[in-house]
Structures are given as structure tokens and as C-alpha cells.
């Protein structure tokens, strides 16, 4: 990316991001959300001032490798406990606002 580029989220991008996160942004909220998003990006932009010439990208915070577990079942969650934690459930399922599938 061009280090001098100015981040700017426009309305179209805002609605695309909102759609991907299944959020409804009301017209009255647009300005405030746009301003917040751009502020966040401006702040991140500041990091670009650092000279990272020759520095490998840091993808993982710990230098750990192969943090693996053996294939042994454990720590299962009891069904009723799990359903109780859900915002809405019946005796078997977690319920979510209806997703219109392929109709």
C-alpha cells in the first residue's frame, strides 16, 4: 500500500462492511459511524510512520510453534448449561432470529 495514502471510508464502503457483519446502519447514524471508522483508520495510519524496512511481519505474538493437543475428548459442555447461556433456546436448539435461507 502507498504509505502516503489517506484512509477514507466512504458511504458505500460503510454499507458493504455493515452488510458483511449483518448490521443495519440507519441514515441518522451514518455520519457518526463514518467519523468513528475514519478516526480508527487515522490512528492505525500513524503506525506507518515507523520505519519497518527489513523487519519480518509479526503474525503471532508468541514465538510458539506446534501448540498441539492430543486427540482426547474432554471439556465437553453439558447441553442444558450451554442452552441456558444462549440468549434464546428451546429444549434442543439455540434459537436465532429467522434466517431466510434459499427461498
Amino acid at each position, binding site marked *: 500500500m502507498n504509505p502516503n495514502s489517506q484512509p477514507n471510508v466512504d458511504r458505500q464502503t460503510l454499507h458493504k462492511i455493515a452488510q458483511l457483519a449483518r448490521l443495519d446502519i440507519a441514515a441518522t447514524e451514518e455520519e457518526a459511524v463514518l467519523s468513528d471508522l475514519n478516526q480508527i483508520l487515522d490512528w492505525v495510519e500513524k503506525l506507518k510512520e515507523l520505519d519497518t524496512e527489513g523487519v519480518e511481519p509479526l503474525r503471532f505474538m508468541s514465538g510458539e510453534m506446534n*501448540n498441539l493437543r492430543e486427540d482426547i475428548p474432554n471439556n465437553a459442555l453439558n447441553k442444558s448449561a450451554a442452552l441456558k447461556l444462549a440468549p434464546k433456546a428451546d429444549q434442543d436448539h439455540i434459537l436465532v432470529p429467522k434466517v431466510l435461507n434459499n427461498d
Partner: protein
Amino acid sequence: MPTLSDYEVVIGLEVHVQLQTQSKIFSGDANQFSTTPNTNISAITLAHPGTLPKLNRQVVAHAIKIGLACGCHINQETIFARKNYFYPDLPKGYQISQDKAPICEGGKVEFVLKDGKKAVMPLTRIHMEEDAGKSSHPDEGAYSWVDYNRAGTPLVEIVTDPVVCHPNEAAAFAYGYFKEIRKLVQYLEICDGKMEQGSLRCDANVSLMPKGSQVFGQRTEVKNLNSMRNVQRAVTLEIERQFGLLSAGEQVLRQTLNFDAQKNTITAMRSKEEMNDYRYFPDPDLAPVMISDEWLQEVKQQMPALPQQLQDKLMTDFGLSAYDAEVITEEKALYAYFAQTAKLTSHYKLIANWLMGDIKEYLNQHHLSIEALPVKPAGLAQLITLIESGKLSHTIASRELFPLMLKNPEQPAEALAQAHRLVANQDADELSEVIKGIIAQFPKEAKAYKQGKKKLKGMFMGQVMKQTGGKADPKLTTQLLDRLIAEVE
């Protein structure tokens, strides 16, 4: 008017394979098919705050196995990525998958088409990922139901290169490839191959282009095909649909499609579902995986013989036809049954006939797998030995002894045959008397037979069998009949 043959089809397949492990890919809840919703779940699977995924070692070993079986390059340093999309069956809001540096790259799958021709499917990559949960949408009410049993089930996704096919051959090619993948994963014992439970699912990418073109047409993706037959049907249907559009001067749209097996139709998913932008990035919660040379070597040593190798072996070492070899290697357990029986009797073709005839019929009727067959390889070998030694006609073996063996699997075949008086009459004197009686009964026919009317042999054999209740040794009877007929004046 252009015809379908004026086009070429480009096809690419993505097969999702559920791996057979005790626990899930990133958490300890059981990896088990269950019809009771939300029984195999954990705080990690449900993405409760503060939980962290931890990779199951066995999943890596399974992924290496399929990679080795397909001759892929194994990336010994491999990382996981987040594939971001929003759907209720995906509690984290992203699927942990692989993007850059997947565990396997390249490779190919060789298989045999229905007509016996060999075919090769080149692979792009194989990567590890987690399965999503399942949501259902009842007609009534304002809610969708979500079951997270399947969420976190370890998968490998096998992605092929796009391959150019003749329009009439594309569907059979896809069918043969998917069938071979199912065989492979079962032989490797990394997947149970249970299609009806969704253990293997295929997405098909299809496009059409004018014959000889270098530019691929607009492709579509048909999702979630859950049987070999449905892969074949959906590909056929999609080729026809696209040909219809192109012939009418219309455009093929870039779409994700659903195949309805009941109605045999293809329909587009809602456009909103298609607006995917997965925004992959390396998952910081999971450490990179380093596959040491030792680990790789260890997995290599565990590799079993693969179906194509065994098929060749059945043809060269056991003299079976390509068709027999193909059917017997279809299921690993069936091949194992054959191999065990073949250690006990060398009448290999007969073993194959029994497996593909009476035994298959019994298993199909009772919805059983070969492992559940009451008659074990030792029993089948005894049965075949009885037939081969002339002690039992094939008809009696099939109609009488085999059903008896199924009911009394603990009893030796010969003892059962004796107890039920099924053993062939090999008493030459007794049989001679029977034959003489019949010749006396049918003097005209006997004379005609002697003078060369060979068709009458069947009539005489039939009479002998009728009078002995089917228990005359056919070989001996033939010999005696030939001799006694020759003596007719």
C-alpha cells in the same frame, strides 16, 4: 444452431472430508455424528469469550496422509487463517481455515471411469479447516434453530485445478473422481465415508466455453452435493442450464447454486448470500505448525496400500477382471474379506463371484456391511472348497447351504451339509443305476443323444438331478452319462 458439442466444459471440484477423530479440530468435545442436537459442544465450539482454540495433532496427521496419497507437496510449515463471514451456524463470526501455505499443494488423483478408461484429476491444494454447525428454518415462528454438534468437526478440503472436458464426459469424470476420493479416505482410515451423514460433500464449479477457446466462460458453483449420483446429476443439469442460456444469447451469471435432488432442479441462492468477501488473515490464536522430517516419516510409514494399487494386484496376482477388481476394492472391508478368503482357497474367481453375487444380495437385502456378515472368510472358503471338490453343486450351495450357514455361523460348512444331507452323491454305482433307469425310461432320446443330438444332455442331467434331489455330483454324473450313453445299442 450451435450444439452442446461446440462447447467445452471447465470443471473444478471442492470436496469437504470430515475427518475421523475422537475430538474436534480445536477443542475437546467429541467428534461424533449425533441426531440429538447440541450434545457434542464445548465453550470453545460455542465461541464463548476468553476461549482459545488448540489444534488436534491427529488432524494434521490425517491431512498429511491424504496429501501423501495424492502425491502432494507437504508444506512442513503451515498456518491457519480466519475466513470471515457472518452466519448463525458459525459462532465466532469466522471459520478457522487455511489460506496461504496450506498443508498440501499440487498432486493428483488417478481413477478409472465407468467405461474402464483411466483418468487423472490434478489437485491445487488440500487444506485443514473446521466444519460449521447446522441451522434449520422451520416454517412456523420467528426463529431459526441452530445445532452446534457439527461445529468444529475437523475437515480437509480437497481443491482440484479447473479441468477442460467434453460436455458429455464432464459429469462422469466428476462422478469417478468423487468416488475415488471416497475410496481413498476410507482406505486411509481418515473418514468413515458415510455420505448420508454428510461425511463427504462436494461443491462443483462449472463453466462453458466455445470449443478451442483459451478463455474460460463465467463459472457458477453448485453447493453441497452429498452423493456421487447427485454430483453427476447436478453437473449434467448445470451444463444443460448454461448451454440453454448461451444458446438463447443470454449471459451466465456468477452465482452460487443449490441442487434439489428431489425435484432435480438447480436454483440460485439469494444474492445477499453470495456477497462474500472473506477477508482472510492469519489467525493469531493458533501457533504455526512445523511438521518435522521425523513426523513426516512416521506418517509415511503408516500409509496403507491404496485402492488403485490393490485393484492392480487383484488383476495381476489373482487374475480377476477389471470390473471385479473395481467392485471388490470399492469398500476396504470388502477387499479385506476377499484377501482373507483368498488365503484359505485359491479359487479366486469363485470368491469374487460369491462376494458380488449371493453375499452382496444378502447384505443389500438386510442393509448390512460386510463386517456384519455372519459367514466369515473361513466359512466362505469351506463352502467354495465343497463346491470345487464336487461335494456340492453350486445351486445347492447357493439355495440351501449358504442360508443354513447364515443361520448357524458357528458350525463348519461341511458338518452342516452332512447334517442336512446336502452333500453330493459321489457314489458311482448308485448314480450309474439311476442313469441306467433314466436311459431305459427314454430309449428314443438316449439313441438320439448317442447319434449326436448333444442338446439332449441337458434333459438327461435334469432327470438325474430331479431323481437325486439335486445332489448328484455334476462332474461325476457327466462322466457316467457319457460312458453309459456310449453303451446304448
